[in-house]
Each structure stands twice: as C-alpha cells, then as structure tokens.
C-alpha cells in the first residue's frame, strides 16, 4: 500500500465533549484578553483604523452625499451616529472562528490556512453588517433595532459556521491530487 502523502490529520478520535471544552477554553482566553485591552491603543487601532475607517470609506463610496466620517469608535453622518463597540467590532465572531479552528480535527497546515482565510472573511462580513446597520439607522430606526439586536448577530454566526463546516468538509488539494 502506498504511503499516505497528504496533509490531512490522522484520525484522532478525540471525543466531542473534549473538543467542546477546548473550544470554550480557547475562546475564553481570546475574549478575556480582548476585554483586558479595553481603552488601549491596540483596541483603538483595531476598531477605529481597521473597522470604522473602512466602513466610513465604503459608505462614502456607496452614498457620496451622505457625508459619512469616522470619529474614534463612531461612524457618523449628519443627524446620526453608530457606535462600533460591544460586538459590532467583529472581534467576538473572529474569536469564535479561531477557537473552532484551534480544536478542529485538521492537520496543522490546513488548520492555520482555514483560520488565516477566516480573518479577512470575518472582517468583510463585519463591514457588511456595519453598513447594513448604518443604512437601516439612516432610513428606518425601528428596523435598525431588530437588525442590531437579533438578525445580524445570528446571521454572522451562522455564516461563519457554514464557512467552518465547508473547510472541514472540503479535502485538501494534496488529498484531491492523490485521489485523482
């Protein structure tokens, strides 16, 4: 029998409860570390520079007359402001995804690749969320409340779970080459 030349992980029957505990532990480390960064320069850079500024640029591109600008943690336009904090920064979603990849039954290369590809995905989806909330707030404040409290958090987590499952279910390129 030929040697298995793939970067798929050998079958390790680690029970689901242990993986679940590992997932919660990994997430907790990331989330609590992030909470400790409250008010720090790193937090400001991640939220203002990496989240609010791109959202303002995108909103300005989509609706040039809206007069949108980034002010600290706020996405502002004449007559309204959107506070990008406490979930709207996308960090919790990112931590959930990274924690899932930390315990996933994958070879290390695929694990890192999946996590690395997930980072821009989370950032992009979060930008979409911010823009949806911004335009909802602008056009229909009651709709904003529904979207903000319920719809967008659920949809974001569901989409990330779909991505994670797709990564698990899709064999690596070397495995596909070997099988061909």
């Amino acid at each position, binding site marked *: 029998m030929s040697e298995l030349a793939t970067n798929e992980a050998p079958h390790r029957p680690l029970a689901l409860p242990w993986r679940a505990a590992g997932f919660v532990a990994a*997430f907790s480390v990331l989330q609590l570390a992030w909470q400790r960064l409250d008010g720090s320069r790193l937090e400001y850079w991640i939220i203002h520079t990496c989240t609010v500024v791109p959202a303002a640029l995108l909103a300005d591109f989509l609706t040039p007359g809206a007069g949108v600008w980034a002010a600290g943690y706020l996405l502002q336009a004449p007559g309204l402001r959107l506070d990008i904090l406490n979930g709207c920064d996308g960090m919790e979603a990112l931590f959930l995804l990274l924690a899932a990849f930390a315990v996933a039954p994958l070879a290390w290369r695929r694990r890192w690749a999946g996590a690395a590809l997930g980072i821009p995905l989370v950032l992009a989806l979060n930008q979409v969320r911010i823009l949806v909330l911004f335009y909802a707030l602008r056009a229909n404040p009651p709709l904003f409340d529904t979207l903000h*409290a319920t719809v967008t*958090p*659920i949809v974001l987590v569901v989409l990330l779970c779909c991505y994670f*499952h797709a990564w698990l279910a899709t064999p690596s390129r070397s495995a596909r080459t070997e099988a061909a």
Partner: protein
Amino acid sequence: MRGSLPQAAAPGPKPLELAGRALLCTVLVLAVLQVCSRPLAQALLPGLRAVVPLLDPRFQLSEVRLARHGADEVVRFRGNLSRPLLVQGRIVSPFGWNGTPPGGFQITYTLGGVLQYSAGLLIFTLAWPVSGRRELARRLALALPCIALLPLAIVPLTVVAEFRHGLMSLVAPGPPGGLLIASRYLMGGGGWAIVLVAAALCIDRARLIDRQSNPR
C-alpha cells in the same frame, strides 16, 4: 488495494446543502421570532423575576416588565438594595430609605437580546440534517431545555452585574468586578460559544441515541 488511499468518512452534509438548510432555518426562526418575541419574553418574566434575587439577595426587584424604550420594546428591570449594606467601610442605604432620595437601578434589555441565543440554538439544532423524525425529536428533546434556560441564565446574570456595577460606581468607583467581567464575556460572544457547544452536543447525542436504538 495497492496504490489506493484510505478515504476518510464524510463529515456530514455537503457545504452547500448545510448552507441552504442553515439559511432556511435562520429565515424561519427569525420570522417566528419577529411575531412571537413579545409573548415569549412575557412568558420568561416570572423566571427572570425569580432568578435575579437568587443570584444576589442584596438586591430586590421592584419591577420586571415589558416596556417601550424609544422605538424598541424592552424588558425593563428596576431594583433597589433590599437593606442597608456595608460597602468598603461605608453604610449604603437603599434609595428612599429613611429620607434618602427615591430612585433605584434600572436595566433595559431588548427582546431580541433576551431571545437571541435561544433563537441561535434552535437554528443550529434544526439546520443539521437528521436521519429521521425520531432523531429530530430526540435532538429537540435535548435542545429545548437549553433553549428555555439560556435566557434565564444569561439575562439575570447581566442584570445583577449591572446593578452591582451601578452600586459600586456610586459608592467606590473602580475597575469592573468579576460578575461584570463574566456578564460582558457572555454578552461578547461567550453566549454564542455556549450556543455552539450546546448545539453540537445535542446533535451528537441525539445521533448516538438514534444509532443505539436502531442499529443498521
């Protein structure tokens, strides 16, 4: 066979199939939530009212009800200290006690915030494919208690944490206490971590029970 590779077992549904099912379940659950959030939140009020003083008997609730907060419908918690307390060497009296100004602590929770995690758990429970109706029934039997308990665990914890934080902000401002950190952890993704773990365990256990009951 010589030259062949062992094939790993398929890890569940195909990605597009799962994405389609997840999208459908999300739309259905959110539609139901849009219609039923008020009666569901109303049904939770007695439980929320009961759990808060269990978490911290130093506080008593004067009001737990649905209210309007701008355009939003919210669950409003109003509370006060239940008795004078010694806090960092100072006697702190409840609002309105022996001539002190009336008042209290107030926390509002959007209905969506109360029901968000339960809705998420229901979506994941329904989205993953089942082999038959019995497996689905077993899965729901495992998930429904979690769906009911999640808001009763998370919401009162946040209320008590914010009450405590409100008290300390008045008396001795300082860094957030442990309960507030725990509450912010749950509100900041920790609740979703619990939802995802609960969904995975319910799906897995139901499938195992189904296989044990119906060996193929």
